[in-house]
């Protein structure tokens, strides 16, 4: 305990040094900015900022880059709620209920709630990082490909009722997403699949491009010409008006807590990320809701859970990176690169050897999140006023941002074509009421499912029983079966009752 307090003290001393404070502030502000701008995400921003970190000391560099990463998660929901355009690929889920809230004139409330959710999700995950980072990282190592596969199956099944409207259309769109995920290099054989000789497709379609096309460009296309009324700008923008009522507080705290737990779990598993976390948290809330039909029409739970989850997951993603040197995603890999640029190679002894850096970074998370919270709430009024900008000015600007963002993620002009094509596809889907969120879900989960399924079989020498024999995997599969049984039980019971009634008539 004493050691822990000494470490926290050391961390606070580092995080509160003027230089650290400055870089933390720069990081989170930039992060929030790129989060708000549709298309430009944390990966592009961090990659661009990487060369600049040459000239500052490694702790400050890390604090700033980390701030961009989690700051973007705060900003990402803003455009989702106000314009139905996800600010980052991972905040697409927030469109589902956030935009309907804005349409009802509750934009300020939605933005306020997501700021609180984000802070709560982050706080939970930071506490985990402080208390248990090494232990969690070790536990995550018990997850091999069999376990990953089972978790993904659970996620896919849980999220299969993600959208409102026709379940068949929803399912079809999941399958469409899975099919899109097939494009690229087959990890197991190295063959190019569905790349049509286009080298740029060899790493698959870019998630950012697909998400921005299906959600962003499609939204813009759909509104052009229809003269659609923008979301209602709330008349009253006073602080009191955006504060949730007591009943609303009651409604959001449990989903936020569950979202934070799900997000932290997913975040601590390398190779997953905030997108999956928010999808799973949303799906879980909808599953356990008393009245799932409210989802998709502006349910507070529908923004609380995924926003808490994606923020928790980005904070938890630091666990495997810092305590084992295993970066969970592309953003973490760049962060690790920034450390290596300074001769610090994160590995199992990083926390012990660089306590000032580790604890300084972790305590800077608190500083950064507080800054974000404080920055966010007064800005709500400003964001909401964005709605007053006529679409004919706003939309071209957004299209430009989307193109810049998609290009800068990998310096690839091809991705701009991808975004445009998916914009057209998304527009077509809208016209015929096919939901876009399940496409994204299938697209994110599909490649992971396939990769882990095949690797698990490769490692078990083709023994399918491996999924049931490994205890953690078996638990997740059992949960999946339970979930399936739960969703079919009303139908079965109804049939059973009908059969009995029929038998009684005889």
């Amino acid at each position, binding site marked *: 305990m004493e050691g822990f307090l000494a470490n926290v003290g050391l961390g606070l001393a580092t995080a509160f040094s003027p230089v650290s404070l400055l870089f933390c502030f720069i990081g989170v502000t930039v992060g929030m900015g790129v989060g708000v701008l549709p298309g430009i995400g944390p990966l592009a921003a961090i*990659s661009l900022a*990487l*060369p*600049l970190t*040459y*000239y*500052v*000391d*490694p702790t400050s560099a890390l604090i700033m880059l980390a701030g961009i990463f989690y700051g973007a998660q705060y900003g990402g929901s803003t455009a989702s709620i106000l314009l139905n355009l996800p600010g980052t690929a991972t905040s697409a889920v927030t469109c589902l209920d956030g935009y309907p809230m804005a349409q009802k004139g509750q934009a300020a409330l939605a933005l306020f709630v997501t700021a609180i959710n984000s802070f709560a999700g982050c706080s939970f995950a930071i506490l985990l990082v402080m208390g248990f980072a090494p232990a969690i990282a070790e536990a995550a*190592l*018990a*997850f*091999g*490909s069999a376990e990953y596969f089972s978790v993904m199956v659970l996620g896919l099944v849980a999220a299969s009722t993600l959208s409102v409207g026709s379940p068949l259309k929803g399912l079809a769109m999941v399958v469409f997403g899975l099919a899109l995920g097939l494009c690229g*290099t087959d*990890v*197991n*054989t*190295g*063959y*190019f699949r569905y790349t049509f*000789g286009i*080298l*740029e497709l*060899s*790493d698959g379609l870019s998630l950012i491009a697909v998400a921005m096309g299906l959600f962003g460009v499609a939204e813009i296309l759909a509104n052009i010409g229809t003269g659609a009324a923008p979301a209602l700008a709330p008349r009253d923008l006073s602080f009191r008006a955006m504060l949730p009522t007591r009943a609303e507080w009651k409604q959001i705290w449990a989903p936020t807590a569950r979202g934070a737990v799900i997000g932290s779990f997913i975040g601590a598993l*390398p*190779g997953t990320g905030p997108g999956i976390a928010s999808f799973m948290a949303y799906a879980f809330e909808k599953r356990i809701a008393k009245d799932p039909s409210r989802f998709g029409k502006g349910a507070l739970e529908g923004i609380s859970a995924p926003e808490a989850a994606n923020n928790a997951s980005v904070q938890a993603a630091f666990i*495997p990176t810092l305590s*084992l*040197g*295993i*970066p*969970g995603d*592309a953003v973490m*890999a*760049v*962060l*690790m*690169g*920034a450390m*290596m*640029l*300074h*001769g610090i*190679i*994160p*590995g*199992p*002894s*990083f926390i012990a050897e660089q306590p000032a850096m580790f604890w300084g970074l972790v305590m800077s998370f608190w500083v950064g999140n507080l800054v974000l919270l404080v920055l966010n709430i007064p800005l709500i009024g400003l964001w909401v006023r964005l709605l007053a900008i006529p679409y004919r000015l706003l939309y071209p600007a957004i299209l430009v941002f989307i193109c810049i963002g998609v290009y800068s993620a*990998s*310096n*690839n002009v091809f991705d701009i074509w991808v975004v445009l094509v998916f914009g057209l596809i998304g527009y077509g889907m809208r016209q015929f009421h096919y939901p876009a969120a399940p496409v994204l879900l299938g697209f994110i989960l599909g490649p992971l499912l396939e*990769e882990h399924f095949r*690797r698990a079989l*490769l*490692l078990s*020498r083709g023994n399918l029983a491996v999924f049931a024999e490994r205890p953690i995997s078996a638990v997740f599969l059992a949960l999946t079966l339970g979930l399936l049984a739960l969703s079919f039980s009303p139908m079965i019971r109804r049939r059973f009752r009908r059969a009995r009634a029929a038998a009684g008539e005889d």
Partner: protein
Amino acid sequence: MRHDKFAPGTRRGVLAGLALAAATALLPLAGPAAAQGFPERPVTIVVPFPPGGSTDLLARQIAEKISAPLGQPVVVENRAGAGGAVGANYVARSDPDGYTLLMGVTGSNAISSVLRDDLPYEPLKDFAPVSLVVSAPLVLVVNAESEFTSVADVIAFAQENPQTFTHGSPGIGTSMHLTGELFGLETGTELVHVPYAGSAAAMQDLLGGQLDAMFADLLVSSEYISGGRLRALAVTSAARHPMLPDVPTVAEAGVEGFAATSWQGVFAPAGTPEPVLDRLYEVVTAALTDDDLKAFFAERGFMVEGRTPAASQEFIAAEIDKWGKVVDAAGLKTN
């Protein structure tokens, strides 16, 4: 790596360079590229991988060091995809004027061409090497709790249990993959290759005990070796490595003549004028003797090569030949 040693005002220099690049892009290019006066505008080094990896770090170090003698900013640009082929192809198609260079690696500039028939470029024909900059051995590592304590253990086990011993790699066609295949061929054993999407995921499974072994990057694995999480059984180079003086080479451990390294070099598009190549060779090799860079290399296990353009081309031809034989013998060809 100390970070305070760079020339003051360089950041401003980069920004000014970017502005200049934007400005020159609007003007018609002045005259044919010639060595005198080269470079007249910023030089770009394309890294065919995402930022943050070891090739990226190396490129950024070199860019930093050659910028001053060239008198122009040197900008690193990441163009990732297809195991390096996207970035390599981009450079191969660029104007051969020395302003667009590639930080090429074993995969992009040797293995890919023998593994795939459908690559749009040919390493020997489409590139003019500036210099093969560094090389590094791979390390055969197992989990510290593994029962295998020597290369002989691994060979004995794999001979008795064909198709059982698993080794991971960051993907098909990486030097880690092919070194494992070479090991299998030379020892007459059948190992199971488990490809991952990147070295982090493979390392995760090795640490978690899901995988038996990996021919890993020295840079990536050294922290785990010194931290007691992985055991190094052998290095793949012909000689022992100063970072791991007690670890035998694979050849010493009983696989006679075994030698394989991964390498990185600076390449220009084929057709780049010789004076320009010579100028670039001069500044790149001068950078390799810089104290900061020497320390950087030593800390990360890179062995300085600094070969001449001709020697580099010769070396790469030999590499293509060597890996081509492994690809053929192991039946790895795709498409």
